[in-house]
């Protein structure tokens, strides 16, 4: 049973149809890169997977949860599906540790001590344990993004979504974040990444999906499709991004 099932999904924003019938399956432990130009629909597709966007047609099932926009069902889904945003979205009024402990405490009823230990664990995993009591505004962009990843990890999701998580970072800080993402992939996390980092996608992703004009234009094993792009659009996209 695939852990992510996207079946003929359609989505429009007002008069603009952004997803024109997208179908995709992801197996457990797979790492999928979603690439394409701005406006191709890739971020929208990602946001549909945890219910931040409501689909207009088709079917989605993630981690055994059929997409159901009833609040309680959505929350159940979101416990198993984590997301990391381009703009990190850390809670500025909470320390790093508190950011991470908030959801486990409120959603899973974790006791404070237990939650703190969990926070220490995930922070150690991404290499920022010493920052546990620091506030987001004292961290660099790369550190904030890694904390955002840790915050998501603390909920022990079965699938993680990454929405252009390095696009808002200065180039020097991109490496540290990509290193964390790669480590998670090696540890067996099922991941979908919307990314512009082509070399990273080629190296880390099992499957790459190229989206264009709201459809999946080309997809397949990363190494193969990067070496032998089948469609002219994908070829053009690759040549313009891999300058």
């Amino acid at each position, binding site marked *: 049973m695939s852990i992510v099932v996207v079946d003929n999904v359609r989505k429009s*924003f007002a008069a603009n149809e*952004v997803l024109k019938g997208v179908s995709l399956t992801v197996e457990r432990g797979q790492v999928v890169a979603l690439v*394409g*130009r*701005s*406006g*191709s*629909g*890739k*971020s*929208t597709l990602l*946001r549909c997977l*945890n219910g*931040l966007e409501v689909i207009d047609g088709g079917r989605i099932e993630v981690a055994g949860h059929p997409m159901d926009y009833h*609040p309680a069902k959505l*929350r*159940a889904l*979101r*416990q198993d599906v*984590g*997301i990391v*945003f*381009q*703009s*990190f*979205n*850390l*809670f*500025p*009024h909470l320390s790093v540790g508190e950011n991470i402990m*908030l*959801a486990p405490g*409120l*959603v899973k009823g974790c006791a404070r001590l237990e939650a703190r230990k969990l926070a220490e664990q995930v922070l150690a995993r991404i290499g920022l344990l010493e920052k546990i009591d620091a*506030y*987001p*505004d004292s961290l660099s*962009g790369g550190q*904030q*993004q890694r904390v955002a990843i840790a*915050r*998501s990890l603390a*909920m022990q999701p079965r699938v993680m979504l990454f*929405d*252009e998580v390095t*696009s*808002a*970072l200065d180039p020097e800080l991109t490496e540290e974040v990509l290193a964390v993402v790669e480590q998670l992939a090696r540890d067996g996390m099922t991941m979908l990444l*919307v990314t512009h980092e082509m070399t990273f996608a080629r190296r880390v992703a099992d499957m790459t999906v190229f989206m264009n004009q709201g459809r999946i234009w080309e997809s397949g094993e990363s190494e193969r499709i990067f070496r032998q792009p089948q469609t002219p659009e994908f070829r053009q996209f690759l040549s313009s991004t891999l300058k």
Partner: protein
Amino acid sequence: MAFELQFAPVVADAPILLHGFWLTIKLSVSAICLGGSIGLLAATARSMAPRRYQWPVDLYVELIRNTPFLVQLYIIFFGLPALGIRMSAEYAGLLAMTINLGAYTTEIFRAGIESIHRSQIEAGLSLALTRRQVFQHVVLKPAVARVWPSLVSQFILIMLASSVCSFISVEELSGAAALIQSDTFRSLEVYILVTVLYLLLALAFKIALSFLGRWLLPGAAGRARVTSGGKTGETPRS
């Protein structure tokens, strides 16, 4: 130009002034607590309500903010007895101040709540928090921290507005001044003194309330800058 000022007769009536000073403080602090609570509740209720049901709060705010406090006071003190509700001048004053402040604080809290970027809420929801949990932990605290300075200004304004209660013979600071003035005929002297007292009160309130803000919301104020950062701060649609 005979510019002689005689403060002595005024000072002789100091007890009246002190009583008035104290009453001003009591009225203001009570109105701040009650009015502030109303504002928080109303703004919260409005934020959580669907758009169709937001109008009662909006109506309340617009009615109060577009009519003079004095008229509101007269309606409460003179108008309500005609409908069978009687109260002392002091309570009428307190009620008017509370209702008035409530509307302004509702507006301030509403602005604070709406200033919390959508991405913060999305982050909270994506962590499987309920809407209520998101509101309480992600929206409310930084919102209040962000608007605290505006709240302090508004609280000081209502303290100054208490002077209008003298129009219905409440013996707060301005009322005390009116009494002393009719007693001693030293009008200018009284009002100079009372003006200085108001200035001191305004300063004291400002300092006390700023400390209160820092004590209630430690660190949150400075941090209430959006840490949804990086270059764009917006989740793109692609």
